[in-house]
């Protein structure tokens, strides 16, 4: 091997993975300015195109020291795209994008410093799921830790938010804090100041990013990841209202009833007691506990009672017009909206609701015989249908709107006689009986039956569709209880019910399950 080249500096290679419209370009421009102002040559490329419209995109930079140039005829030749295995610094503005960098081979354990924000911007796939479609963020973080030489990862979106700036400034601070570029901190700040726009906020965000990075020991190969409690989305951690008027507490002796349940179920049972008491009355909460008691007896490892306690509480507190009206006018709700839309003291907030009560919902709220009369009397139904064809915008912050909802909410004492209550209650009692019946012989299957109640949720069409899916699952029980893998099969059906909103996947899954099984006789 003959190496005719004297040892020359290699360019510093930097890939920025971002989403269109996130300010990745601003960050890249800062790095260019930083380098060019400090005796480096900088080359930057990007692929703007339609990726700008919220798609994933990469900015790529190479920096080369002017000192490395030997003669004017030989300018450095810098690459226009990252080569896998040849990237010094990968900057990701979001956790899934960091994962993408791993998949593209840009992060390698021998050389890459990964600077990533671990906040999540959910993908379309995650957002349109009918239940929980979110990917496992821990897995992504673990993969980053394992693929990178060094990693600096924390929730930079939260810092940007707190400093009133954008994520690119926090990332820039993290790059400075990581000490991976041969420029002092002041040089970074100089680039921000020359940039011109929103300097004060950018510098604040930069400083916060710098400090968050240096606070961990930057020389450690994989510094500890700071996770915002209690969820991965740091922006949501303080969503509970703080200044709303005090509530009436649920009597302690009632809450203590939860202690009679297996430890695993206690938190859920307590939440269930509070929910049912809040929804209707203390007597209603006692009914909840009475209904749960027999299930607790049938429980063997805590799973059945936990799931039943959860679903029973949700089922008993279905969202009817009374409930919605009540939730909308609560002082704590007004406070939450103020915080969420960030109203300050000089501003006035008005809140308007988008409601579309149809004949069905109106009949549901009325006493059962009257409700049924409306639904089954052609002219009556037609009249109300016509009146309710359009949705209504109710301004809850106005006296008229507030009083309207206040009156609806005050129908609460009538609820147990309403048509909806009758229907829901019958359905719930039947489900509970099924759970208990199956639990006696097929415990695992019973746990799944309890969980399947979760399909019944939402409003209007969504609720009806959920009910249909649930009924289809229950109809399969006689067959499933004959199979050793009945519980797993029911879980698969529940998953299929959540796969699309046309019911096609569930239909196919049921059809497949009904096919004669070709099992070897044993």
């Amino acid at each position: 091997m003959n190496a005719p080249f004297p040892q020359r500096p290699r360019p510093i290679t930097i890939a920025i993975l971002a989403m269109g419209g996130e300010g990745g370009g601003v960050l890249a421009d800062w790095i260019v300015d930083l380098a060019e102002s400090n005796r480096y040559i900088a080359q930057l490329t990007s692929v703007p195109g339609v990726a700008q419209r919220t798609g994933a995109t990469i900015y790529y930079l190479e920096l080369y020291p002017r000192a490395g140039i030997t003669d004017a005829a030989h300018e450095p030749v810098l690459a226009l795209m990252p080569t896998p295995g040849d990237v010094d610094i990968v900057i990701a503005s979001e956790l899934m994008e960091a994962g993408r960098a791993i998949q593209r081979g840009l992060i390698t354990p021998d050389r890459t410093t990964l600077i990533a924000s671990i906040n999540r911007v959910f993908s379309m796939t995650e957002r349109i799921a009918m239940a929980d479609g979110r990917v496992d963020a821990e897995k992504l973080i673990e993969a980053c830790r394992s693929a990178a030489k060094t990693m600096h990862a924390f929730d930079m979106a939260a810092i940007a938010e707190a400093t009133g700036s954008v994520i690119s400034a926090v990332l820039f601070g993290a790059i400075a804090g990581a000490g991976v570029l041969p420029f002092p901190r002041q040089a970074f700040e100089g680039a921000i100041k020359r940039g011109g726009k929103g300097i004060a906020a950018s510098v604040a965000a930069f400083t916060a990013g710098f400090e968050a990075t240096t606070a961990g020991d930057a020389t450690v190969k994989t510094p500890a990841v700071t996770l915002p409690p209690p969820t991965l989305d740091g922006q949501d951690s303080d969503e509970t209202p703080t200044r709303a008027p005090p509530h009436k507490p649920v009597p302690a002796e009632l809450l203590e009833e939860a202690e009679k349940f297996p430890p695993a179920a206690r938190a859920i049972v307590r939440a269930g007691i509070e929910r049912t008491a809040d929804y209707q009355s203390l007597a209603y909460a006692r009914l909840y506990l009475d209904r749960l008691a027999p299930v607790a007896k049938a429980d063997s490892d805590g799973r059945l009672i936990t799931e039943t306690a959860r679903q029973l509480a949700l089922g008993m507190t279905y969202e009817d017009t009374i409930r919605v009206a009540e939730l909308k006018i609560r002082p704590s709700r007004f406070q939450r909206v103020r915080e969420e839309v960030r109203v300050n003291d000089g501003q006035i907030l008005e809140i308007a609701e988008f409601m579309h009560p149809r004949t069905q919902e109106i009949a549901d709220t009325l006493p059962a015989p009257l409700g049924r009369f409306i639904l089954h009397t052609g002219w009556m139904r037609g009249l109300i249908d016509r009146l309710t064809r359009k949705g209504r915008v109710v301004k809850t912050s106005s006296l008229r709107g507030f009083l309207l909802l206040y009156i609806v909410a005050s129908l609460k004492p009538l609820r147990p006689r309403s048509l909806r209550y009758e229907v829901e209650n019958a359905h719930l009692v039947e489900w509970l009986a099924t759970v208990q019946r199956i639990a006696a012989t097929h415990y695992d299957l019973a746990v799944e039956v309890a969980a399947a109640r979760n399909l019944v949720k939402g409003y209007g069409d969504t609720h009806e569709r959920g009910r249909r899916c649930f009924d289809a699952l229950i109809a399969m029980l006689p067959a499933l209880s004959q199979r050793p893998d009945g519980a797993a099969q029911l879980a698969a059906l529940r998953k299929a019910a959540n796969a699309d909103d046309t019911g096609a996947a569930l239909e196919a899954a049921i059809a497949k399950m009904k096919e004669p099984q070709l099992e070897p006789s044993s």
Partner: protein
Amino acid sequence: MAERSFEQEVEKLKLGAGAEFRGEGILAITKALLESGVSYVAGYQGAPISHLMDVLADANDILAELGVHFENSANEATAAATLAASVNYPLRGAVTFKSIVGVNVASDALSNLASGGVTGGALIIIGEDYGEGSSIMQERVHPFAMKSQIWLLDPRPNLPSIVNAVKQGFALSEATNTPVMLEVRIRACHVHGRFETKDNVRPSYTLRDAMESPRRQTDRIVLPPASYLHEKEKIETRWPAAVKFIEDHKLNEFFDGDLTDIGIVLQGGMYNTTLRALELAGLADSLGHSRVPLYVLNVTYPLIDRELVRFAQGKRAILIVEEGQPEFIEQAVNTILRRADIQTQIEGKGLLPMAGEYTGGVVRDGVKAFVRAWRPDAISDAPPSNEGAVRIAAAAKAIEHNVHPRPPSFCTGCPERPIFTALKLVERELGAHHVSCDIGCHLFSILPPFNIGATTMGYGLGGAGASAFNAKADRRAIAFLGDGGFWHNGLTSSIGNAVFNKSDNVHVIVDNGYTSATGGQDVLSSKADNKIRSTHNSIEKAVRGVGVEWVRTITHTYDVGQMRDTLREALTTKEKGPKVIVAQSECMLNKQRRERPLMVKAIKGGERVVRERFGVDPDTCTGDHSCIRLSGCPSLTVAPNPDPLRTEPVTKVINSCVGCGLCGEVAHAAVLCPSFYRASIINNPSRWDHLKARLRNAVIGFLQRRIAARQFAAAA
């Protein structure tokens, strides 16, 4: 007004001799045009040369000062036809558009131009939209150059080389009476670099000179017998002239290396990637010294036989680095060397992939394989650390299903989204319809959450793509068309065609005021006042002008109910002939860019300003996400459920919401759920606002205290 403003950057176009220019590739190209004494420039936007059009528009004053005329062409055919000005007069002209689709549209004019030839330099700047981030079919411009005999430049992707290619391109065009294409790859268009500038040059012969003393040469017009003459002239005169010019001016470059028995022939645009590949193989350094001799084709058509023979002579093997397929260069080199009876082995698409972008990793592997095959002694290929490779593979495997594709989609508050929401709702009533799409942001409808649309046949061809579905049937086909595509050619190709052929189909023209997908440039129907262009020309008038009787213009697409009802009517009306719906609402990206600064200023100035945004109540949201499936707005996302009893994430509206109102409309029209609310935030409230608020707060506060006293604590 375009999405990105170059008002500051265009100042760099005034730099004189000896100054250093720092900036983006497209800006450097503009500067090179001015230094070349260009008389007129035209083009049609599209990545990656949209910004070139934006730079030219923003530089209009500078251009005018130099006597340079700039046009936003109606389409690429118009742009190419503009070069007719260089046929009879010594005027230098340049046009620009994107490959390959732009070249396709321009091909009629390009063929005519190339046949008769030019007097003044005619340069066609092609933004090569190939590989990562490309939004079009993966095809080459190369065969277009070959079939029409237009010279094709593919310079090394650094600013001095690109600037030089512009200047030499004009000279080559004039020396050979042939138009010249300058192909610039997507990253080169956007590369930030530097070069030394020269003074701008005023064209010595002007458009006015030409208009006031017109000239004509009938033998330059494509009509027999001149057309036969042109073909002969191409081969007998223009080609040899090109070969001579390219050799004399050393447009192609040779780089020596000590491994003289092998070599690499490469497209100029592949230079940086190839050099990095050599560097990673230990065969080059960062300053361009390579051990393997290189022959860089800054001109990829025509090839120069003598140069190739000279390079290949005495070599055992050469590698051809040629991106795209078919491998025209490799085939030609084989022919050339065979004819010269040179036995050098020619490697190319055997070691490098036939199809796909030549990325850093791909070229590195190909170059290494080549050297390993022919000079194994020269390559010290330390095997990559096994432990590292295992770790990467394991990490990638672990997150296999945790990284989703993130394609572009409709922006927050996009006015096109409710059109597709409405269509989804109509399809719930009337069943699925065949939907023909067009080019533009509205094509994002084919992706989740809408999943609407079956084909797209090209810009302005949405209606044309549905034209066969003109048979007796119980369902009509639906065609989409954007305002950009409409004015590009859709008025005739789609609408006129439907009128003439008595089609019953439904055409939805998405009129958002700009060619938004290409960066928000103005079109004829833009609502913005543009001081150098004529805007405010109505689409409805235009379609009525070509004979459409059934036209509905909707001026607020966010009204999903109205949109749905109009679509239903169009799909079911007994009236004959094409049904055209002009769905009008301004592109939100552009609207925000215009209005946000004004709003901030008004608030600062103490004016009463109401800002609206939407929100979701997490305690009534049951986590079904129907609302997201009917909208897909980036501001509409999910968040952990604060309810301890529920596990599914709730829907959440984040602060980037611009309050377009679609969420509420969808909740109403689709009867979804009552969780959405609209928050109106009144800045600098008036005394009346304060009075009203005080009154309300007194009553509501009183009632709320009563509620609180009755309500049990929900969470301890």
